[in-house]
């Protein structure tokens, strides 16, 4: 088990290193300079700026400096906000994004499980059809469209929640829904299919032959067996939440990573772009490793083969 973990962590670091390298050279291919007031600057000013940011050094030196910096948690200096280290920029904004992401994940998975299992239990009834329609719509309607609609009708027209900005819990409700509907739809579909399979399995028939009630069967046997594979979806959900945050945070003016990322893209602030890319990638890789470990813990079949292997 420990050997397996070490191997996984090693590959994780290797992957991140490669991602950093590729991103770095990709950014070097970017046309134009990163200075927003480029037109007004003289050649001399540009040179001074380049010197200040270390952009006059040969590319391989810049690369080595960047990689070593990263090992010490230094992601460079933002071009957009002069003299602000990227790491500071990120750490000051990560709280909002993490909170929003976690809430959206919990919201989506929780209601997705409920909708999906109710649909599976009442297969081929109007309840099933309704939940299928809901999950198809949830999967198909882009989250930014939903966000704009929620913002206008719920916040502006009805005034139930704040329109935008970041404050208490009430500020998080609408962005959480907008962000969480995708995972909700996906969970509902996944749980429904899984539970339909489980409900058709032999061990459910045996449970029925024991005389257990419908509720007992679902609660003791069907739920656990159909929810365990759900863990594998946490990785894809993380991706969805990361990308979703880019546009949702923008619409609701939330000071998070996604909003910063879009801003940086629009002004070619590449140290920040690289920093956020690395953060997303590290987060994603860590979560995938974590879900693999969790999967091994909650599924007894894998647990055993893991300890033997």
């Amino acid at each position, binding site marked *: 088990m420990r050997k397996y973990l070490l191997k996984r962590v090693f590959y994780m670091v290797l992957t991140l290193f490669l991602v950093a390298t590729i991103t770095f050279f990709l950014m070097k291919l970017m046309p134009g300079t990163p200075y927003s007031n480029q037109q007004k600057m003289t050649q001399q000013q540009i040179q001074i700026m380049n010197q200040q940011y270390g952009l006059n050094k040969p590319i391989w030196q810049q690369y080595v400096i960047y990689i070593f910096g990263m090992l010490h948690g230094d992601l460079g200096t933002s071009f957009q906000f002069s003299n602000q280290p990227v790491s500071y920029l990120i750490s000051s904004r990560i709280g909002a994004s993490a909170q929003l992401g976690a809430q959206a994940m919990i919201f989506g998975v929780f209601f997705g499980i409920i909708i999906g299992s109710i649909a599976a239990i009442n297969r081929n009834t109007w309840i099933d059809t309704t939940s299928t329609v809901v999950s198809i719509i949830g999967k198909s309607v882009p989250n930014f469209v939903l966000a704009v609609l929620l913002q206008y009708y719920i916040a502006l027209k009805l005034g139930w929640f704040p329109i935008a900005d970041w404050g208490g819990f009430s500020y998080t409700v609408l962005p959480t829904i907008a962000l969480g509907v995708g995972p909700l739809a996906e969970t509902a579909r996944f749980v429904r299919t899984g539970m339909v399979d489980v409900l058709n399995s032999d061990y459910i*028939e*045996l*449970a029925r*032959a*024991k*005389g257990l009630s*419908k509720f007992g069967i679902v609660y003791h046997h069907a739920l656990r067996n159909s929810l365990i594979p759900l863990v594998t979806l946490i990785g894809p959900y993380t991706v969805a939440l990361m990308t979703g945050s880019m546009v949702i945070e923008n619409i609701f003016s939330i000071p998070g990573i996604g909003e910063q990322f879009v801003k940086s893209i629009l002004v070619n602030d590449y140290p920040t772009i690289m920093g956020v890319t690395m953060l997303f990638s590290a987060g994603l890789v860590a979560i995938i490793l974590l879900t693999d470990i969790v999967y091994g813990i909650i599924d007894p*079949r894998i647990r*055993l083969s893991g300890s033997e292997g």
Partner: protein
Amino acid sequence: MTERILDVKNLRIDFHTYAGEVKAIRDVSFHLNKGETLAIVGESGSGKSVTTKSIMGLLANNAKVVSGSILYHDQDLLKKSEKEMQNIRGKDIAMIFQDPMTSLDPTMKIGQQIAEPLIKHKHLDKKKAWQQALEIMKLVGINDAEKRINNYPHQFSGGQRQRIVIAIALVCYPEVLIADEPTTALDVTIQAQILDLMKDLQSKIETSIIFITHDLGVVAGMADRVAVMYAGEIIEYGTVDEIFYNPQHPYTWGLLNSMPTLSSTKLEAIPGTPPDLLDPPKGDPFAARNPFAMKIDAEQKPPFFKVSETHYAATWLLHPNAPKVTPPDEIVRRWQLYRKMNNQTQVH
């Protein structure tokens, strides 16, 4: 007179499929006496599993009981609500399933899986239920039961798993035990162990068994009486000796003839396939595969002809007007043995 604890009368079950109504069970009647083992034999698709599932009230959603009754101690099980059936299933009537590899919940400790019926029906607390689970595990021959009670199904071999499935079925000491091909999925050596175990437990627990199988060989050592099913109907039934040594229906002949024996040199297969139950033939369903088929077989369904008090067969060959036919050699040999056996008992 022996007590009938289960009496199935004129059962008809249809399955609704996208191709049409499949008439899976077509007028089936049989009964189970207290303490005996009744074997229902037939090839796959003959309706034996459907019959037992209807007793358990576990029919699939697209199945419909068209007519008939299933009397258990004078109560019609088909008229019971789902809630009432839940109180009978696992307590009075229990079931052993075919494939032990898939019939245990992979994510639940087997102790809990065995204890579940006790908690449900005997209202025991978890500790007591586990204690009884442990006892029954020992009874079905799981070694080191104290430790293994905490294991998960994948940690057991196929034979051990079937022992656990048996333990689950017997943990409430049911009056009727339905075993649906309990040995089909197992290795031959394990099969014998499981059969021995079932016989042993039957005497200890005093339960009546309905034993479903497609393998006549398994039946000989297990059953008291045998019913042969074909295309959703019972075509011959009698005591185990009557079916094995005095078979009357050509299908039963075919089954016996396709079974290896010490003297046989060649196994005979029954040619053809069973009829499509979407559109069952109006006459004898076996006519198309029957080398002894007569005109009447294509036109009218044969009624049951009485062979003895306990032995009936549905074939026109038993009609007084029917020509005498010579069954396959193997059957003739069995008939001779049967006559010899009867003479001996008479002399006795």
